[in-house]
């Protein structure tokens, strides 16, 4: 059984396990500091994001060349086009918020990696990444940077809300509405509903395949959610930076297309203007999961049909909790949980009323989570793996932001071209399908291992990249900064790098072979040894143990 009782004490190794899974790792020094606190309050604060000083991070995010897309050229013949001053690499990120529409996929990936690396509220980024995989929405169909980033921001803000509120927010999210065809779900009159979203919201987002519903429930829910679309203000219509002849909304708001007035938003999702929305919403009642719902009238501030959607958690609470338990266990704890473990976590989720904050606190404080059997038992996804290594090897925010130019990884170049998250197996913001990415050992195949080797080289071996006539380090690193105390032996080098990179236990024969090959003769902490330390870091990162966390 999964013992969900909270631990009462923890070690530095426990803290590091927690931080790898619930964030993107902690340095040995930071882990030691946290280990000095009682685990209960410390984990509460970690999950709630309290006791943090985000000022430096927010300042860096707002000013430190987190700015504009160099590829956008002014197009004075297209109304709405904006002349954007180019900012040179290595850090040409874009802003979010009102200017989020300026991003390309690569810059959106880059700025998100930057946030994962530097956000002091690491758990917020960890949960956003988790929900992005679960509610996987793909850039290649949405084709709108602003709406994709808006959805990701929803995962940050509602990632610890009640699950039904998150589920409704995602169901009303404009990017999702485009992705799974809610905008084309027309069930008015005798029209046949488009059941794409209704199927996936149960199969992929709340219950799991064939877990408590049937085909009739799908068609009925499709009717309940028909006409769920969005509108946007005229002022939010922007020129596509990649294609100035096309325009798209830089923001949008959920709206049920039921023939009612839509002012002050004057644009429909497909760009048309009208003062009333088309009528695409079914009328009358639907029979869904054994209950009947009036989807025509609204009560309690719910949108038309929202009553049916919300009933998933009441009519099929056990199924939904089981679904969530599977996903949470596989991401945070272990992929080889027992049926009893699953039932225990499912019961806990139901008892917590699907309050995600409470659920995550219970799970991540539990003896079950800290069980040694679950340590290094998961293969880590490539984005998390890369960000965690960058957090360990690259300068932390104060040093990075005060350097000239700022010593941030050139995420824009990392996410571009050949050294990509894509080939490593996680094309952030652009999953192939709505099922996202399978986790654990599904991250590992011959191609993804090839590209992990490449990323390991970029992280550890000081790879540079030329761009626009200048050369930049992909990951700015200083070997001496990895070693607060100068190592006296090869074993010291290994011990420190292991403490930083935190691979699964390495076979002793392997590390002995590595050290003998790298330092065949007397050891001195000189430039040559520092170069060897990079090579040792590379070996740790691309070894099998280095893929686990």
């Amino acid at each position, binding site marked *: 059984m999964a013992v969900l009782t909270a631990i009462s004490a923890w070690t530095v190794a426990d803290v590091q396990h927690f931080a790898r899974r619930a964030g993107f790792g902690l340095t040995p020094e930071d882990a030691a500091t946290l280990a000095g606190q009682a685990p209960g309050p410390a984990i509460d604060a970690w999950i709630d994001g309290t006791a943090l000083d985000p000022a430096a991070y927010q300042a860096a995010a707002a000013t430190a060349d987190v700015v504009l897309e160099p590829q956008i050229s002014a197009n004075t013949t297209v109304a709405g086009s904006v002349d954007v001053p180019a900012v040179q690499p290595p850090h040409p990120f874009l802003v979010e918020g009102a200017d989020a529409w300026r991003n390309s996929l690569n810059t959106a990936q880059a700025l998100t990696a930057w946030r994962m690396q530097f956000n002091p509220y690491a758990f917020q980024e960890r949960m956003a990444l988790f929900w992005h995989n679960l509610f996987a929405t793909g850039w290649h169909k949405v084709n709108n940077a602003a709406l994709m980033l808006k959805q990701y921001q929803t995962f940050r803000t509602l990632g610890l809300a009640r699950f039904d509120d998150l589920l409704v927010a995602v169901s009303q999210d404009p990017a999702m509405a485009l992705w799974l065809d809610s905008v084309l779900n027309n069930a008015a009159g005798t029209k046949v509903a488009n059941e*794409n979203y209704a199927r996936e919201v149960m199969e992929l987002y709340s219950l799991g395949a064939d877990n408590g519903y049937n085909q009739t429930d799908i068609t009925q829910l499709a009717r309940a959610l028909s006409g769920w679309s969005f509108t946007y203000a005229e002022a939010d219509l922007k020129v596509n930076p990649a294609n100035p002849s096309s325009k798209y909304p830089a923001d949008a708001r959920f709206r049920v297309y039921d023939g009612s007035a839509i002012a002050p938003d004057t644009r429909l999702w497909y760009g048309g203007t009208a003062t009333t929305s088309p009528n695409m919403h079914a009328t009358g009642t639907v029979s869904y999961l054994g209950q009947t719902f009036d989807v025509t009238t609204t009560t309690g501030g719910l949108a038309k049909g929202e009553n049916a959607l919300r009933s998933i958690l009441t009519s099929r609470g056990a199924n939904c909790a089981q679904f969530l338990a599977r996903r949470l266990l596989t991401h945070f704890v272990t992929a080889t949980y027992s049926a009893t473990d699953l039932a225990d976590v499912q019961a806990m989720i139901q008892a917590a009323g699907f309050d995600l904050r409470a659920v995550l606190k219970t799970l991540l404080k539990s003896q079950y989570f800290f069980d040694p059997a679950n340590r290094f038992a998961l*293969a880590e996804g490539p984005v998390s793996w890369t960000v965690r290594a960058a957090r360990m090897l690259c300068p932390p925010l104060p040093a990075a932001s005060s350097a000239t130019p700022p010593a941030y990884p050139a995420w824009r170049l990392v996410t571009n071209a050949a050294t990509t998250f894509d080939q490593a197996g996680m094309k952030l913001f652009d999953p*192939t399908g709505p099922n996202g990415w399978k986790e654990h050992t599904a991250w590992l195949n*011959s*191609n993804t291992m090839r590209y992990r080797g490449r990323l390991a080289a970029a992280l550890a071996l000081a790879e540079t990249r030329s761009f626009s006539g200048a050369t930049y380090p992909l990951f700015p690193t200083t070997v001496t900064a990895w070693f607060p105390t100068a190592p006296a032996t090869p074993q010291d080098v290994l011990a420190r790098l292991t403490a930083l990179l935190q691979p699964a236990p390495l076979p002793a024969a392997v590390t002995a072979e590595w050290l003998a090959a*790298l330092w065949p003769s007397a050891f001195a902490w000189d430039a040559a040894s520092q170069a060897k330390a990079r090579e040792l870091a590379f070996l740790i990162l691309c070894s099998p143990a280095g893929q686990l966390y």
Partner: protein
Amino acid sequence: MTTRRDFLQTLGAAGATLAGLSACGGGHGNGGTGSTQPPIAVPTSPILVIVNIDGGNDWLSMLPPNAGANLGIYQTKRATLQIPGTQQTDLGSGVGLNTDFTGMDQLHALGRVAWITGIGMPNPNLSHFTSIDLWGQGATVPAGNGWLGRFADTAFNPTGDVLRGLTVTADLPIMLKGATRSYVSITGSGGYVYPAYLLSSSPVADAATLEQGWAAALAATGPDPASAAAYQAAAAAGTLFYDAQNNPAFGAGGSLPSRTPAVLYPGDKGYPVTRLNGSALSSTLSSQFKLIAQMIAAGLPTQVFFTRLSGWDTHSNQATDHPNLQRTLGGSIKAFYDDLASITTPSGTAQDRVMILAYSEFGRRVQENSSGTDHGTAGLSFCVGRAVKGGLYGGYPDLANLDANGNMKFTTDFRSLYATVLDRWLGQATSTTDTLLGASYPRLGFL
């Protein structure tokens, strides 16, 4: 919504484009138009190329009914999406072939396409992901490894044959997972010699030390019980790449010899068929086929390749998306077939050695929704090759006899296709095939 009139207007120079296709493809080998040719014998070194039509193909728009009772039902339930008879080549037996399925009419006329209509399983699942697993596993209940993975477990040399099964997709599909063997994933033609793929710019110092250190870690067993299983999974994946990149089949610099295709493929400049709106077709599948052609020409010892074309989940916008997808799929297959004729190998021309097997996880609902079709059941598979006896196989589903959800009932068990391929193309003994599939399924007559 694209109407027939729009379609004609979009094509514009339709006569030129469609006629031009054979002009570009027909100058090589056995491609092009012509009368039916008898199939050749199954080659001694057969190659299987899987094409995954990913997303659930609305094959009723590919091979629509064009006569009999099915036609009226089809026209009623496909009030807006039906394919008019004027846009079909008659295949006989009340079945038409959509002319948007570029090049396939020519391959059919040569007798090189076996169409298996109504293929499916007794308990179909309308989930993409469950159905993808079932098709991959060759099972009707999700469990176990892939049917081609099991084939590899049985047929591949356990300590060699690292390039015998290969996917040109970046993922490892479940169809290719075995208990002891997995297929290698190679998505490009270069960088397969150590350490060329590590750094894009500067030389790697101590490359030999790093390579040996990496190999040592891959060969080791994880010392920690908690992480041992995951360690071995990472080591197996890494070893597969390590062995592949060290393979002498890759030439100097770790790159396959460059190769210029003998024909134009979809996406190439000058390819005569476009999307409905006149823009170029996707090169997604073309680039996979070109890489495979390059690999065969380079002499890679690969017996099974896997490719994928996604985007077939046409819940909406089907009138535009599905024709474009058909043009890409058909045009890519036709170009690949023609291109292979120009590749000579010690075991015969590549065109003689390759058979393409295309499948999708399900067909789509007969009744259309307001702009597309939702998930359905029975599907279409087809095989293309010089050894294939072309024609219609399986039965066409009876559209008057749908299941309770309005979906077609399958007429041919998908494992009959797999069984036919395993013993008549991949050379497995009948008993081995039956063991791999867990039971004996009737063989189809196209091989």
